[in-house]
Structures are given as structure tokens and as C-alpha cells.
């Protein structure tokens, strides 16, 4: 049982929880994730380790409410405990001094990209961050990301903060402007896909963190399989980071939609149980 120490809404629909989990905090590295179950009847869902504090023995998660499980997580308060909180899982990011790296974060992807950016910065890289969101009120952790970046660019769809436009625009400009060793892109699938397509002509390796549907997250079921360079891989044990230029994006997107109908049915029941009129 892992207890929630603090819980807050960072921006509408995005929550941050700090959780007591000393054993996981001791091990956690940038790029790894957890499996969380809100309650006994809940699903096992993967969430990235957004931050960790080994001394305090805490793990921070940041999640966006989109369906039953994430709404259930948002309903929980400081003092409550998750039914299951398991990790750290997956391979951690390979941290080296590559030279110049670009970190592209979309929406809630800012949270998982932050510890990677921090580790890369500590390893001596020049870190350029591009943080995108729909509008100003959905931006979070700008200060944190900026604090580990040599250059920090904000993009919004509606121009309410930073530049108006997509993250791929500054990505292309920087790639044209200077020598870049590696690109990291974490966020919604279309954003990762188009970031990869943008960097491809420049031949710059682009690492993405895939969010396929998981259950055990230990390589036992194969439910999280993805196609990387025409080879089947399990996201949970072979990833979650992969070479974005090799990912079969269409397959990933279609596999994310397998349960669309059931997810709606489950969410309707969740709302009904909360007494929300449909």
C-alpha cells in the first residue's frame, strides 16, 4: 500500500501526486515507469516516474484525466493509498554526454520528459526544450523544465503563451540551425510521430516513449506489443523508449483504440456511480 502524501491539480485535467514509496524511489531512474491500481476493482495502468526523491523516499506522478482509471486516481486525496503501486519498470533512458539534445514535450508529456532532461543536463549536454500545449492554462512545470534547459521554447496552439504553432516548427528550425546529437519526443502519439518525421530528413536519432496498453508490465502477456523496424517488441520490457524513426505509428494508434467502446461504457458507469446525470 503506497500512501499519497500530497495531491494537487496542476492545471485543469492534469494532476500531480507525491507518493511514499521508498523502495521504488531508491531504484528509480529517468525514463522508467510504474504500474498503478487505484482500487481492487481497478485496472493496472502505467504512469511514468515524473520525479523521485531518494532521501524523502517519494515518487511523483503526473497524470491527465481521460477515462475511468485516471478519474479514479484524481478522486484520491492525500492520506489515501493506492491499491497497487509497482515499479520501477522498463529500461531507463541512456544518459550520456551526447552534445546538444532537443527535448520535445507535448501536453502531459512534460512530466516524463523532465527527469530525462535533468539527467541529460547533469551529464553535460546542451539541453534545448520545446514545450507545447493547447493553451496557456494547460502549461505546467515550465519553470522546472526551464531550470534544466539551456534554451526553453514554449508553443501553444492558440498563441496564449509563447509562440503560436506546433512543436515541430521550432524543432525543424533548430535542426536547420545547429548540430544536434539526439532528439527526445514525449507526448501524444501524433506529436511523437510528427516530431520523428521532422527529424528524419536530418538523420538525427529521435527517441520516443511509447504508451501502449499494458497489464502486467513484466513481459508476461504480450499485450503491449509494438512494431519497431518490422520486429515485434514488448513496450514494457523492451522499451518504453524506442527509435521514433522505426515505429509503426498506425499500428500503435490502432492498438490503443482496441477498447474504445468498453472504455466509454466503463466511464459512463463511473459517472453514474458518482451520481452524474448522463
Amino acid at each position: 500500500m503506497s500512501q499519497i502524501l500530497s495531491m494537487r491539480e496542476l492545471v485543469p485535467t492534469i494532476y500531480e501526486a507525491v507518493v511514499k514509496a521508498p523502495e521504488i524511489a531508491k531504484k528509480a531512474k529517468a525514463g522508467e515507469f510504474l504500474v498503478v491500481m487505484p482500487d481492487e476493482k481497478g485496472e493496472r495502468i502505467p504512469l511514468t516516474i515524473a520525479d523521485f526523491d531518494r532521501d524523502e523516499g517519494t515518487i511523483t506522478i503526473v497524470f491527465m484525466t481521460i477515462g475511468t482509471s485516471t478519474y479514479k486516481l484524481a478522486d484520491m486525496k492525500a492520506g489515501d493509498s493506492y491499491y497497487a503501486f509497482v515499479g520501477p519498470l522498463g529500461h531507463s533512458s541512456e544518459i550520456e554526454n551526447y552534445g546538444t539534445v532537443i527535448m520535445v514535450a507535448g501536453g502531459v508529456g512534460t512530466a516524463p520528459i523532465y527527469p530525462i532532461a535533468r539527467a541529460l543536463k547533469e551529464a553535460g549536454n546542451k539541453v534545448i526544450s520545446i514545450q507545447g500545449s493547447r493553451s496557456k492554462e494547460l502549461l505546467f512545470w515550465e519553470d522546472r523544465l526551464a531550470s534544466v534547459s539551456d534554451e526553453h521554447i514554449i508553443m501553444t496552439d492558440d498563441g496564449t503563451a509563447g509562440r503560436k504553432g506546433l512543436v515541430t516548427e521550432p524543432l525543424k528550425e533548430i535542426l536547420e540551425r545547429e548540430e544536434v546529437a539526439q532528439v527526445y519526443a514525449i507526448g501524444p502519439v501524433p506529436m511523437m510521430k510528427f516530431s520523428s518525421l521532422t527529424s528524419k530528413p536530418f538523420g538525427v536519432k529521435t527517441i520516443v516513449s511509447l504508451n501502449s496498453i499494458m497489464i502486467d508490465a513484466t513481459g508476461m502477456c504480450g499485450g503491449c506489443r509494438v512494431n519497431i523496424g518490422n520486429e515485434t517488441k514488448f513496450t514494457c520490457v523492451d522499451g518504453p523508449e524506442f527509435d521514433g524513426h522505426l515505429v509503426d505509428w498506425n499500428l500503435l494508434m490502432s492498438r490503443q483504440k482496441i477498447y474504445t467502446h468498453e472504455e466509454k461504457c466503463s466511464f459512463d458507469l463511473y459517472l453514474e456511480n458518482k451520481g452524474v446525470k448522463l
Partner: protein
Amino acid sequence: MNEKKPRRKDRVPMPEQDPKVRATNFKEVPLGYTPEMAMEEAERCVQCKVPSCVCGCPVNVHIPAFIKLVAEGKFAEAAREIKKTNALPAICGRVCPQEVQCEEQCVFNKMGRPIAIGRLERFVADYERNNDLIEYPAQVEKNGKKVAIVGAGPSGLTAAGDLEQYGYEVTIFEAFHKPGGVLMYGIPEFRLPKDIVEKEVDYLVHMGVELKLNEIVGKTVTIDELLGERGYDAVFIGVGAGLPKFLGIPGENFGGVYSANEYLTRSNLMKAYLFPEYDTPIVKGKNVCVVGGGNVAMDAARTALRLGGNVSIVYRRAREQMPARQEEIHHAEEEGVKLCLLTNPVEILGNEDNMVNGLKCVKMELGEPDESGRSRPVVIPDSEHVIVADLFINSIGAGANPLLTLSTPGLELNKWGYIEADEWGKTSKDKVWAGGDIVTGMATVIEAMGAGKNAAMDIHEKLMGIMKPTDTSPEALPDDMECQLPPKRQDPTT
């Protein structure tokens, strides 16, 4: 009162749910004996002087002794007699392949009517549990040593229980949020109700075994850390064979294509069959194809049937060669599962949304025998045909999951990735033992339990100098007798 009914000849049948009814629910299929039925069946046992049945049981349950107690109506005592060598009788009575173990060796088997040892075992264990007659062993004095068990499947649970009784402080580390291993995530509710598994685990916890759930050894903590900073004196690894196998044909990543592991884990562990009361969804196919011919395939097929599908099992050999238990094939067919024998899938077809919508298959015929002595299936030319399917379950076996072994330096593996261990479970790594499916490949519950037991004895010998019994002859046999049977193993290949 003293008048005895003549001993009946045939086995007392066990009442079962009607196939039509049970095909629509997840309640247990066999309903179990009544006390009268159990006593009548027990009367059939002639209490052989040299009970060959005992040799057929991998843990040498004292079969005639417990059956005698059943015949006398001393059911709880009978359960305790079994528990001297088998801590999980309610489970083994249900899932042991008795027809190739204890019952195969019963003297009456030659006449085709062996004593229903499994049914009796199940009956007494249920009787003891349902009437709150379970007795806990007295607290033993602690010897000051600590053992870590990795995995709460049958091998780990058995090792934990025995070591606890030897006086060790025992902690089980389990990756999932529920203990039981395959008993919990693999075998469906209608064959093994989960509350029975929970009760058996509660028993261990009550005895003093510590259970740490949601801890993945190799990730949350490593074996070297357990033996080092965590101060354990020995580790037993019983992590099972949890790696799905796929056919390697085109189309395997379409939605609606599952490994049996995923399908059964969703349904059993996550209770997707109760969706949306439970949050985990599962694809409910109208036309379901299960590929494979083992017990796992039967479990997947019968689950899909209960979720409302028309289910076919596609198997590339003939019926006689199916590795599944006859009883399970029979149950599946009774419920309406169809068998497509001598058929092999070559490609999975999908629609524009990348969801499976068919299966391209070829017909097979039996050719020359292969290394295993079974006729090898050969493709019949021009036999390609398409089977309509919106759910496809791969049930062609499992392999060794490398998650733990990769993080454990010094642990020798065989070429398939299973852990090398001697007959007592001792591995190449100091202070580390292993047993169950991660050593043998997928076998049976009772064999995994036997491995846990052996390892516990060996650990006790190495740590405390208490010698293992040198006499390998089962207690239930006369002193000068030994079992002559070759060790039995289910064929894991399909």
C-alpha cells in the same frame, strides 16, 4: 446398523452443472461429492498392502490412509492425513491430472475404474474448510534465519509453508497484486474458485509467512540485494514460466489477437469477465479461434465460450495427440466448443481498423513420426481456407521470462532460459534455490509443489545442518518397498 452394503463396482459419479447452464456462467463445473457419496466411493478402496497409487503421486500423499478415514466418516482427520505431505489438497484435488498420476497407478485402473482419489481429496479439503475445522500447526520456535521466496505460485507457497514450519522467518515477494501464480491468473474460476486459493494463502499468512505483494524481484529489489543488505540467508526462486509464445505468422499484432496469458490474466486476475463492474476490459468475440491443444487452450476456449462466443479450437495434429486432459476436452466439447483438428493457421487477417477478422488456415495430415515419437503433421497442398474470427487466442505454450534471470549474475540457465538446478533445486549461485516451471518448463501444480518441498529440505540441511531423509521410499509404503515408476511429466509441447 452393522449391515454393510455390498461394495460398489464403478466410481461414484460427481454431480456437475448442466453443460447448457454452465456454458453461461463462471461458477465451478463439478459440484463435489456429498458425505454419503464420498463414503461410498471410499469403501471401494481395498487398502492395498503395497499401494501403488502412492507412487503415482509426486508428493506421495498417504492415499490409503486418508481414504480409510473417509470411509469411516472422519473427514477432517482425512484432510489432516493428506496435509502431512500436501499442503494444498483443495487445489490438487481439483487440478491434478490424476489420470496420469495417482489414479493411473491404482490397481483398479486396469479395469478402467480407479478409485476417485482426486474427488475424495477435494471433498475432504472442502469439508474441512467449509466447516471451519482447519487446524493451524503450533507455533514453532524461530531459528533466527531468514529466507526470501520469489513468486507466490504453488512452488513458492509450498517452500514458504515448509520453511516456516522448520523455524525460518519467511517472506514471499510477489510481482502481482494477488498471490497464487497460475492458480490465480491462469486457471479460470469455473475450474478453481479463487476464494479457495485465497483461503490456502491465508493459511500460510496465519502461520506467520510474510507476504509482500507488488514487489518485482529484479526490478524493485534484486536477488543480490536480498542476500546482501536485506540480510536473507537463502532465496528460493519460483517465478514460473511466464513468457507468451506467438506463432510468428503475419497479422499477429492486430487488435483482438491475444496470447493465452493476456486473455486469461485479463479474465481471471483482473476479473474482466465481470466488466464493467471491474474496470479491465476484454474483447468479447462472436467467433473465437483458439490455437493449441493443451490445457491452457481449453481454459481459454471455455472462458471465451462463457463470454458469449462461438468457439473453435484449431489444432494441427489429431485429437489423440492433444496434450490436454481428456476430461477438459470432454468438458469443452460438452459445452459447445468445436474442434478443428489437423488445421494450422498461416496468416491472421484484419480489417481496415487493424482488428482481426479472419484466419487463413491450411489442412494437415499426419506423416512420419518426429523426435517425440508423435506423427508429424504435414501440410496438404492447396488446402488453404479462411475461418471467420473476431478474436484469436494464441495458446501454443510458454517460455521462461528473462526479467529476473537477466538481473541475477551468476545464475546458470539452460539454452531455453530456464534455471539450471539439481534435483533439490540448488542453482549454480550461492544461497539460491529454484523450482517449479522456471526450472522444468510448464509442468503441473503438484510437481511445482514437490519442487518447493525438496528445496525447503535442502535449504534446511545447508543452513541448519538438519539432514534430509536419506530414505527415499514414501512413508506410506512398507519399509522395504520403493516406487519403481519413472518420474512423470506432462508433455509441454503442443
